[in-house]
């Protein structure tokens, strides 16, 4: 490649595949399993090109048997390998959650730390393209709630590559949740802001560190994945209205960078959490609790959350779009916050 490092832009899909390829080159223990991750390159492009370079032994199309192949990844990881497995849509977790949370996430603990399970479970999240209620969920809270697995959610290709490399090198299981609308697959449309400059060489982004992606003083917009881009757009609008919004990209739900959240809200005094996962018992409640349990007087206004309502995801576009978080809703929420204050 002749593109300059600083200027070459990649989609998240390409960034993920590049990180995997680079690790596979230097570490023979790394291999990939999943449905349609071979010649097809992953339904969401996460493994494109890998089979050509690494062959069918290290890039393995599986039967539609998530319990078996994710369980197998646990066995292989415990035996010295570093598998990457793909669960095509996070919505399918229900057919294989035992392998994920009772084996992958707990075997290290059950063994007193003696058995390591260095594996990456990558899975697509999110809706917005009318794929209805079994193919559009985020389920961030579902995974983050259960101990024993790290959970990362990139919002752009730079983080996507660095988090993937970090996840593969991590000696712990990492659930890597990528949002379809950021992926850069033509057929899904793509959030432009997700496709950013990505260094060609290998690097890591530390798991467990949030990023202030825009500085501001009047409100903290805390989000992850696709939500970060809604926040950035909302911040632009608010700036025109004379307000400066800080945007915090959590990047990792486990570990959660509570300090970063508290520091930001400590500065701004206002909090809006934006989450595409279901409203109740999830990410948005946790972020709010994180702030107030630490300091119940730091808020100048009641905190707000824009999350997916507690409803299955409807197919019809008007209903689905209405239910999703977006920049307008964030702007409105902020305005209301200022009015009621």
């Amino acid at each position: 490649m002749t593109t300059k490092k600083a200027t070459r832009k990649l989609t998240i899909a390409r960034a993920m595949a590049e990180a995997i390829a680079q690790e596979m080159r230097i570490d023979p223990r790394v291999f990939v399993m999943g449905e349609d991750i071979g010649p097809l390159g992953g339904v969401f492009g996460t493994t494109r090109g890998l089979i050509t370079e690494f062959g069918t032994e290290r890039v393995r199309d599986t039967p539609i048997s998530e319990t078996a192949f994710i369980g197998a990844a646990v066995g292989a990881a415990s035996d010295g390998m570093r598998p990457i497995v793909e669960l095509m849509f996070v919505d399918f977790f229900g057919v294989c959650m035992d392998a994920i949370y009772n084996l992958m996430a707990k075997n290290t603990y059950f063994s007193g730390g003696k058995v390591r399970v260095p594996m990456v479970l990558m899975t697509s999240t999110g809706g917005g393209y009318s794929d209805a209620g079994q193919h559009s969920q985020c389920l961030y809270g579902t995974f983050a709630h259960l101990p024993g697995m790290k959970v990362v959610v990139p919002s752009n290709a730079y983080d996507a590559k660095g988090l993937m490399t970090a996840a593969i090198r991590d000696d712990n299981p990492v659930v890597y949740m990528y949002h379809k609308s950021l992926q850069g697959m033509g057929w899904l449309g793509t959030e432009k802001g997700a496709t950013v400059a990505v260094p060609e060489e290998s690097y890591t982004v530390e798991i467990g560190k949030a990023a202030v992606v825009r500085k501001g003083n009047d409100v903290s917009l805390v989000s992850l994945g696709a939500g970060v881009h809604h926040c950035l757009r909302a911040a632009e609008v608010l700036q025109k209205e004379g307000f400066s919004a800080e945007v915090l990209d959590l990047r990792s739900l486990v570990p959660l960078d509570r300090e970063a959240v508290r520091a930001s809200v400590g500065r701004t005094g206002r909090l809006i959490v934006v989450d595409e996962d279901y409203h109740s018992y999830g990410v948005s409640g946790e972020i709010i609790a994180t702030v107030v349990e630490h300091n119940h007087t730091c808020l100048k206004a009641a905190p707000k959350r824009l999350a997916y309502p507690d409803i299955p995801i409807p197919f019809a576009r008007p209903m689905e779009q209405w239910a999703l978080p977006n920049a307008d809703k964030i702007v409105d929420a902020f305005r209301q916050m200022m009015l009621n204050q």
Partner: protein
Amino acid sequence: MKPTAEQRLWMYRNMVLSRYLETRIESIYMEGKTPVFNMANGPIPGEMHLSNGQEPCAVGVCAHLTAEDVVTATHRPHHIAVAKGVELDAMVAEIFGKATGLSGGHGGHMHLFDARVNFACSGIVGQGLGPAVGAALSRKLQGKSGVAVAFMGEGAANQGAFHESLNLAAVWKLPVVFVIEDNGWGISVAKEACTAVPNNHLRAAAYGMPGVHVPDNDVEGIFAAAGEAIANARKGLGPTLLEIETFRLAGHFMGDSEDYRPAGEKEGLQQRDPIPRYRRQLLDAGLLDENSDAALVNEAQARVETAIRFAQNSEFLSPEAALDVVFV
């Protein structure tokens, strides 16, 4: 078991109906998706799994069912829904997401539910099987008649739900028939690459139930095998596993580049399209002539066009209706 003349025409008519419906859906689906194909756009957004090529499975099985029998289908449900008698206008309106749709647009193409004819789907591979077993149990407990039929792809036969459901049905000797539409592919993965037996009907041995293999996407072969399986279920003789060799003429879903297909596969399949083939059979048998065929095709097209107009002219539910029907 041989179909009557009436059944033969019924099967042909429903294949034609399903095919024309999908031909129209296919073109409407592409509206707003060119020059850039973005699944989110157009009058029918989201994933679209066409069943063309697989119509024989649906009609050969459903020819033996009445409205009271239960069918659970998959992410690829149109041909089965048509053959099961799902209300066409409401079904098409649901595919468009309209208020007049089967579910008011809450479901969409992978979630077609028509309680009137006991039809349901799930977009999760293998997950229609448990509900079919339960419906069969329900009939048994209520002392009501009716059988349940669970459709699935050959890829689903490697999912845990397959094993658990067949075992449970066999242990409780329930009136249920499991139908595998073996189109040789699970998205891009060939059956041989992921299935440890050459044919899934062999797996019936693991449940002590009959396993029947129907080759060659043959309408009347399917009719015969399904007829026997369903009759046995009705007689209280328990479940059957039916494996049908079929093929999909299109990609897994619309937008699929189908690069994984071996060269020439697609062209070969077009030659074997089951609809012209069955048409020829019926012409040869004297059940159809050019005129009656044209009339039948016209009628089917007219029904589809009516349904499409109905869908197009229908409104969406209000956006806030998203909050409804979570609970009843």
